């Protein structure tokens, strides 16, 4: 039906997303309603995009890492670090009981720049361990996954600093022309990454480094450097997501910010159909991330009992992954041909 392989691969994830949305149209009240409240858009669909922005942003970074044949388990912890550092910069005295802000207030440039720089260093640590030291990605990033949350807790000394910083709050809670700002950030990021990887040969380099690093190196591709830079980029995405989360709740919760988000991001990438070490699809990961968030929003809006929410989430993901799997696809095709012959 679809000649283009890329489009065909996206078909099943897109169908799954549509089914989830259709389910809500019929069973959740006011699901499609989008109103304008206080000059900004307001509705469940907007929520999916807005709440999904952090997962979406991380899954873009994760897609590239995954395509190099790696995985980054540390993104959740990096989120915690970036939020903790930002909050600490805005209100350094809070954890010691000093409620005053520094005068003049910390500039937006510092509040965003410093955490991102630290995240880039964290990403470089992962990248060096994987690409140059040669540790398995799952182990290499596990180190920072465990240690990173500890570092974030050291930064905030185990407390939850709360703050007010008007320009910074815009990042997670602002609206541009009625659209939540995190949505705009994620769209810009997707566009930039799409341009960089699909309109230049960088995407091909990443895929070849994942598919066959040795052959790529003989071809003159600096595959180690490429792998390292995907980890740095992934950590930067996590840092950005961390800033959005922190700015949204105007507090840095080192214990819980980004907890288990790495699993959501990995699930999004896999649902989207990116190959481990090979072809990647950004559109697939975007759809994957939207599926994950739609499930969450469905659970909350529809009122599924909290005891079974995780089971429900798991079931949907298993079904989507099964439909996509080659074995099932082959079985369907054989069945179709048999019926056509009969």
């Amino acid at each position: 039906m679809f000649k283009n392989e890329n489009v065909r691969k996206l078909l099943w994830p897109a169908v799954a997303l549509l089914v989830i949305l259709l389910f809500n149209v019929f069973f959740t009240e006011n699901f499609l309603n989008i109103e304008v409240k206080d000059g900004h858009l307001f509705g469940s669909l907007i929520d999916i995009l807005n709440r999904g922005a952090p997962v979406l942003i991380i899954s873009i970074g994760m897609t590239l890492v995954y395509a190099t044949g790696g995985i980054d388990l540390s993104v959740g912890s990096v989120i915690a670090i970036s939020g903790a550092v930002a909050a600490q910069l805005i209100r350094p005295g809070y954890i010691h009981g000093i409620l005053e802000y520094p005068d003049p207030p910390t500039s937006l440039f510092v509040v965003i720049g410093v955490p991102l720089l630290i995240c880039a260093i964290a990403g470089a640590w992962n990248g060096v361990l994987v690409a140059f030291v040669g540790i398995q990605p799952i182990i290499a990033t596990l180190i920072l996954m465990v240690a990173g949350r500890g570092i974030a807790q050291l930064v905030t000394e185990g407390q939850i600093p709360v703050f007010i910083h008007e320009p910074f709050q815009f990042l997670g809670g602002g609206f541009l022309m009625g659209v939540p700002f995190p949505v705009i950030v994620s769209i810009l990021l997707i566009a930039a990454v799409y341009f960089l990887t699909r309109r230049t040969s960088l995407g091909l380099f990443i895929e070849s480094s994942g598919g066959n690093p040795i052959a790529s190196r003989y071809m003159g591709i600096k595959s180690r450097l490429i792998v390292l830079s995907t980890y740095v980029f992934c950590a930067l995405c996590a840092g950005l997501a961390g800033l959005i989360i922190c700015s949204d709740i105007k507090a840095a919760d080192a214990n819980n910010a980004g907890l288990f988000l790495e699993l959501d991001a990995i699930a999004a990438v896999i649902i989207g159909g990116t190959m481990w070490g090979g072809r990647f699809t950004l559109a697939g990961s975007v759809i994957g991330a939207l599926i994950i968030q739609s499930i969450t929003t469905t659970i909350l809006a529809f009122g599924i009992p909290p005891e079974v929410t995780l089971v429900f989430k798991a079931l949907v993901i298993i079904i989507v992954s099964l439909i996509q799997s080659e074995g099932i696809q082959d079985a369907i095709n054989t069945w179709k041909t048999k019926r056509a012959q009969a």
Partner: protein
Amino acid sequence: MKLLAKGLMARGIITLAILVAFTACGGKKAEESTENTEIGVAKDKKEIVVGFSQIGAESAWRMANTTSIKSEAEKRPNIKLIFADAQQKQENQIKALRSFIDQKVDVIAFSPIVESGYGPVLKEAKAAGIPVILTDRNVDLSDDSLWETFMGSNFYEEGVKAGKWLKDNYDRLKLPEKSSDTVNVVELQGTVGSAPANDRFKGFRDGIKDAPQFKITKTQTGDFTRAKGKEVMEAFLKADKNIDVLYAHNDDMALGAIQAIEEAGLKPGKDIIILSVDAVRGAFEAMVEGKLNCTVECSPLLGPQLYDAVEKLMKGEKLPKVIWTQEGVFPQEVAAKTLPSRQY
């Protein structure tokens, strides 16, 4: 390109150095604080020596708990406290308890890190004739003669208090145009399966049992966190236009939900009456701003009650098997007055 690679390598090494430095600091800190610290006045004949083994310093609540136990010991001249921090490790805690037994303290008190594994050391304490008080968390042992009393928060009662407060105050607080015949309540639960979530869930329902106008229309977990509280409340607000009351199992979730309510163009504390549990400082700040209506205390300040119990034990009095922490209910009206005195 090679130069760039070298530069990146160098950066990696610096990161490594930073991480090593971090872990080194952590290790040193741990050594310092596992050493027992003695607080109290000069020894005299009548003084009571209490050995206390704390879990660690994992949260603001726990730190307030530690401060309460230490500062109350300083206030009482007849109490000498030997304080040991177990750094979240059961082996450290058991080591500390053994050292208390060796030092022949008068009373041992501790917050168990996990529920099991304390049988042997508690038997040693019993054999040495040292009474044991459990604080804040319980142990899972069939032989309850191994400890004198358990002292801690009654999560069930906190839920009941929240429910009763709502029943008694709703008519006074509601907007005039809202009816009191049916009141739609939504609930943000704590982490599924945790004791505070289970008990606050049950307690609240029992608190409003004889007031059928209160209907819990939605209940969902917010994992005790601000971010989840906000996300869940956003979804509630979209699916249901008639929410009158929000009951949150802790303050953090309520504070997140308040942001969601404001973003939906409603006034928290007025359009939606909000009550929560814990009574942390942030909740008082929200009450002063009029955004939260009431918080039920879950107090970590059990120092005074602990030493009262210790003194009674020393006088030879028998203690009840369970002592609940004294906890208050703080409505909005008293928030401004109480805020400066909040210790956590």
